[in-house]
């Protein structure tokens, strides 16, 4: 038996021993078909899923290569049932192909007659198909391309889409590489995406996803529609595009609640597209307003459900999804796969961190004891109020003050969920507060001041969770959160993960009230962060004063 770095489990997980001499080799080999699930310091675990295997097929990997990889690097025998399952699952991809037929237009073609029969007999699929041409081919209504792909995936017969894309209106876009260049992995991501046609690029927060988008636009040389999560993020995209490409102010339009411009490159928010008035989506025509050659989806894992529906109708246009994680809290990974496309590039956080493109992070949980009266109040509270009570304890504010004092001079964010608490903290720390009601202009001003170092401490609510670039923040203190959601953690940490000028480790504090719901959520957070491979320590609030926390 070879002494490999992998242990393949019968529950479809793969363990990778990181310190093994073949670990890097094995990691690259399995990354193509397995999703990294947990990456703590010594043993990483990957999961084999149908989507992951189909992603691998889409990338040109066949079942035999996957099996050989597993057998080659596995320390122990690989469960036979798993091998059979992999072979079976992978053989399902590509038996159905969507193609352009010169005579009939869009057709669904198969190499395997019974599969087509099975598919044709599915009730939901029948109405999407036109007349049958021969035993292996059936006409598809071109408007149903997306929906068909979605349903076929649900049936377990994902179709490979060879029907091609419309060219879109040409528009010259060039990357302005003055004093900076595309990082190697960004280049690779764009190449993979372009070769695959459509799909998703997975990069950790802070690894420069915007640049991947810009480079894709420069490759496409067409008009582009960019869909982002919110207005602030739209502004940032615009700034970044102005800085990094040949595009000028006049060529970039913003389509949001406030402004509605349609220009060769248009940045729209998910929210404006999904606004419903009288049962209709009034801004839907934006999608057809221009002959878009490329559509970029930012933060794919947050794509709201109605956007999927709209995307189903955009199958003839190239689609690029950008995200930090394929995991969706709502479990709609399958729709991302079928409608936007398979994963085209994925770089583990640790790899990019190791290359020095993102800063290492150090997570510290600070446990505070609630005073006796607060504990009694907590114990008597209704379930619905409990979290608020423990999360907003006054003792936390003291700890925050001490932490801020300990990190004097560093750029520091205080993040919280409850506005009262944030206002109180803002007053105590003499720091500005950014919350939902802060105007976009004011937010922009404060962020600019923070970036330039005029302000050292900023108190922010959850509006700051997504897509705000604060590269100079090196310390974050979280006082309350929304029940330990994995997304939120990743985003908050992402705020701090931009590379620092002096290569310092970013520090992420969480202040937690002991023996309360807060601690339960902290346990989840600890697990998630440790599984992502971050150093994680727990301190008692009392010990902050004596031991210097930045040691």
């Amino acid at each position, binding site marked *: 038996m070879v002494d490999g770095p992998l*242990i393949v489990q019968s529950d479809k997980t793969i363990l990778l021993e990181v310190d093994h001499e073949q670990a890097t080799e094995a990691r690259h080999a399995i990354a193509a078909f397995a999703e990294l699930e947990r990456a703590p310091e010594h043993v990483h675990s990957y999961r084999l899923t149908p989507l992951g295997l189909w992603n691998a097929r889409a990338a040109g990997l066949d079942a035999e290569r996957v099996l050989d990889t597993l057998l080659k690097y596995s320390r*122990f025998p690989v469960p036979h049932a798993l*091998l059979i399952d992999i072979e079976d699952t992978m053989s399902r991809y590509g038996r159905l192909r969507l193609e352009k037929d010169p005579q009939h237009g869009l057709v669904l073609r198969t190499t395997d007659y019974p599969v087509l029969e099975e598919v044709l007999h599915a009730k939901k699929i029948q109405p999407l198909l036109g007349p049958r041409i021969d035993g292996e081919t059936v006409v598809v209504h071109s408007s149903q391309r997306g929906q068909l792909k979605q349903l076929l995936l649900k049936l377990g017969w994902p179709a490979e889409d060879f029907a091609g894309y419309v060219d879109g209106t040409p528009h010259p876009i060039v990357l302005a590489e003055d004093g900076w260049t595309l990082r190697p992995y960004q280049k690779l991501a764009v190449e993979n995406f372009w070769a695959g046609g459509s799909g998703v690029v997975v990069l950790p927060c802070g690894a420069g996803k915007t640049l991947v988008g810009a480079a894709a636009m420069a490759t496409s040389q067409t008009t582009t529609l960019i869909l982002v999560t919110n207005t602030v993020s739209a502004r940032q995209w615009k700034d970044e595009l102005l800085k990094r490409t040949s595009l000028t102010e006049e060529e970039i339009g913003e389509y949001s609640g406030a402004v509605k411009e349609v220009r060769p490159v248009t940045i729209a928010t998910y929210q404006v597209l999904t606004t419903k008035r009288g049962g209709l989506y009034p801004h839907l025509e934006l999608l057809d307003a221009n002959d878009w050659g490329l559509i970029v989806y930012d933060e794919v894992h947050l794509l709201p459900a109605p956007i999927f529906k709209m995307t189903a109708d955009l199958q003839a246009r190239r689609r690029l999804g950008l995200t930090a994680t394929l995991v969706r809290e709502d479990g709609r990974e399958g729709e991302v796969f079928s409608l936007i496309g398979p994963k085209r590039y994925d770089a583990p956080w640790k790899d990019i961190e190791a290359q020095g493109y993102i800063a290492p992070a150090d997570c510290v949980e600070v446990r505070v004891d609630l005073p006796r009266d607060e504990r009694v109040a907590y114990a008597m509270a209704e379930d619905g109020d409990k979290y608020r009570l423990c999360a907003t304890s006054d003792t936390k504010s003291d700890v925050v003050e001490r932490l801020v004092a300990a990190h004097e001079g560093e750029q520091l964010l205080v993040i919280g969920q409850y506005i009262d608490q944030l206002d109180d903290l803002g007053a105590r720390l003499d720091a500005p507060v950014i919350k939902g009601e802060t105007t976009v202009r004011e937010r922009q001003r404060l962020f600019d001041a923070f970036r330039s170092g005029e302000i050292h401490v900023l108190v922010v609510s959850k509006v700051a969770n997504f897509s705000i670039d604060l590269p100079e923040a090196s310390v974050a203190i979280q006082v309350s959160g929304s029940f330990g959601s994995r997304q939120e953690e990743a985003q908050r940490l992402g705020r701090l993960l931009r590379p620092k000028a002096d290569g310092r480790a970013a520090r992420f504090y969480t202040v937690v009230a002991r023996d309360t719901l807060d601690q339960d959520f902290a346990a989840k957070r*600890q697990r998630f962060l440790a599984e992502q491979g971050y150093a994680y320590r727990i301190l008692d609030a009392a010990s902050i004063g004596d031991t210097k926390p930045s040691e």
Partner: protein
Amino acid sequence: MSAIRALADQLARRSDDDLRRLLTLRPDLILPAVPDFAALAARASTRASLQRALDNVNRPELQVLETVTVLSEDDGGAVDRARLAAALPGSDGDVLKVILSRLVERALLAVAPEGGLLPVGALADALGPYPAGLGRPFRTLARTVPRFGPALVDAVPLLAPGSSSEALTSAAAARIIDSITSQPAAWQDVLAGAPEGASALLARLRDAPVGSTATDTASNGGVTPAVRWLLDRCLLAPLDALHVELPRGVGIALRGHTVFTALDVAPPLEIERTTRPALRDNASFGAIAETLRLMTALLGSVAAAPVTTLRSGGVGVRELRRVREALRVSEADAAWLLELAAAVGLLTLDPDDSRWKASRLDAWEALGRDAQWLLLVEGWLAVDRAPALVGSRLPDGTGINTLAAEASRPDAPMVRQRLLSVATELSPAGGAEPSGPQLPVLTDQAVIALATWHQPRLQRRFTRLLPGMLAEAQSLGLTGGGALTDAGRLVAEGRLEEAARSVREALPTPVSHVVLQADLTAVAPGYLEPDVARGLLRMSTPEGQGPATTYRFSADSIRGALDAGEDAPSILAFLALHSATEIPQALTYLVEDTASRYGSLRVGRAGSYVRTEDDAVAATVLADPRAAVLGVVQIAPTVLVSAASPQELVALLRDLGFSPATDATGSVPTTSARTDTDREPGQYRMPPEQLRSRLNPWSVAEEEVAAQLATLRSARPGSADHPAASDSETLLGLETLRAAIRSRSRIRLGTADSEGNHVRQILVPLSVSGGRLRVFDPENQVEKVVSVHRVMDVEILEGSPSDG
């Protein structure tokens, strides 16, 4: 001379070696021992013994036996070899000779004085009513199927134009039709006139003589012309409105006037698929490791909570689901593991509470992994149950429960041996190197086909049991990816110790360290030493399935370890000892934090308590030696507790000169049910060497055969004529009766009546079965039934056929 006596003489003339071979092949002949050759011959002629022997003949041998039976039933005489060869086309003379000598050797065929062959004893009975898949002869059908006799008479003119049916008896008509079907030319003439569809119907019935004509019903509800035509000519016998039987003569004619179209000399060794040795070994060793892991998990789970049985027997669905969820396996796998554990004796049924308990967990864990594997394999080979039947439906629609009696199959060990031998036969030896040739995959069909060739009489059993057993062999690593493994081959050859050694070499050595991580897990990179695993299980929750186990620490799990008497330093020391890496700060914090909070409330059990305001009083009570008898202890300065009841404690305190008052409320229950966890660990401890399953194939030892031979040879030569009080006498009588039934002769039957008087009557025997003899009394023109055990003597009245 009677057939049995003739056989006895033949047996007596055999050499010792020949006899030894016979007795080894048919061990039931001397279990129990027989006194002389007549008894031996008689036992060899019984239906039960013959059936057992028939179970062990292969397809060509069975074909020959059936052919001899069919041909000798034709005319009641011995079958000469030329006629036999003619009825079995394609049979090479030498092959036939070998087969015949094997059958004679096994005393299934007897050689007649003139050299012909005769079926032994009740062979025709043992073969059943349709030997060689042929229907019954015309003359039997004429007797048993209502109105078929007259129909035969009417059919003669239709089949042989020009002949008349006048004054024909049905027996004579049967003879005429027999002669027509046996002549190729005449048969062709008959078929030439058949309407459309007749030949298709005949072809369908050729190998399965009884069939339905339901599909041949015409649109008007009546039978189709083809069926009508065949029925009119008696080429089909109507059994009821829908079913017909193809008479034997017609069947033989359809097979080209032979009993079998060909002798199946070559065993079916075709293989559909192949696999690579590397894949095979991967699958096999993976399966072994997984089975052993699951077995340990199962025993651990059952030790914690025994599995209850249903009143109707077996383990119910709910209990099975519990086991399934604990092990995270499919229901079928859970059932299989329970069955296997019970087969080996790792699970035993406690008769007191009808629960299956894991009585030997310690002994199991003390075994090396190869020894564990060997134990399972031996248990599997020996167990007389078919675990794969669990979950299947009985005819009444109820399912078979795990460990229920319905899955018992006494022949299961034999079927398993056959499976292994067939697997060896299908897999050519050699090819152990990973890049070697492709290995054949043992599919259900291939295995069943070959097993059935070897033992055609067991086809139904093989079809039902073999697929399940093949899957079981796979989970024990005897096959991997469908191909026989080296270990499997060694097991098939009975070299179990060597097989265990090969498994030991292949299984990775156990690891004794884990990797601790900041996400509060410990990952064991392989099979963990049982001691370390037990220690970890006390303080963490296992996760994941496969060769590596992940142990997750949480405040709850640490609390479990604290409950078990550990404290923070001992937990951390254990982790430090077995961790390959440093203990993460978060884990140390968790352990210390949990330990420091542990025990802020304390709970114990007491029968009674004493409260007082004055700790001096408490000290007085404690100081008295009688207090110790009642188990009084101080748990706080002013609180004492005792194991005794409040009444006893009050009595003691009064004795000491106090005047205690009894608290009305807050009574503490004084008794509580002892739980299983109260049991001392290791109470069932047994030495590992006792954990051996017994292999118990049905066989006789060589000494027994030798002793039997000595007895046979020492019996006086003449004794065969006067078998004293042995079962052979009854059999001789039965044989005479059967002969009389065949020849339809009258007999003089001596019976004992209800008062014990010897009564002699002249009777015509009709049939004998189930210990009853049906006779016709020609004097009173009535039918009677006589119990065989009342028969004292039988004498055939020669030359007296009872009818025309």
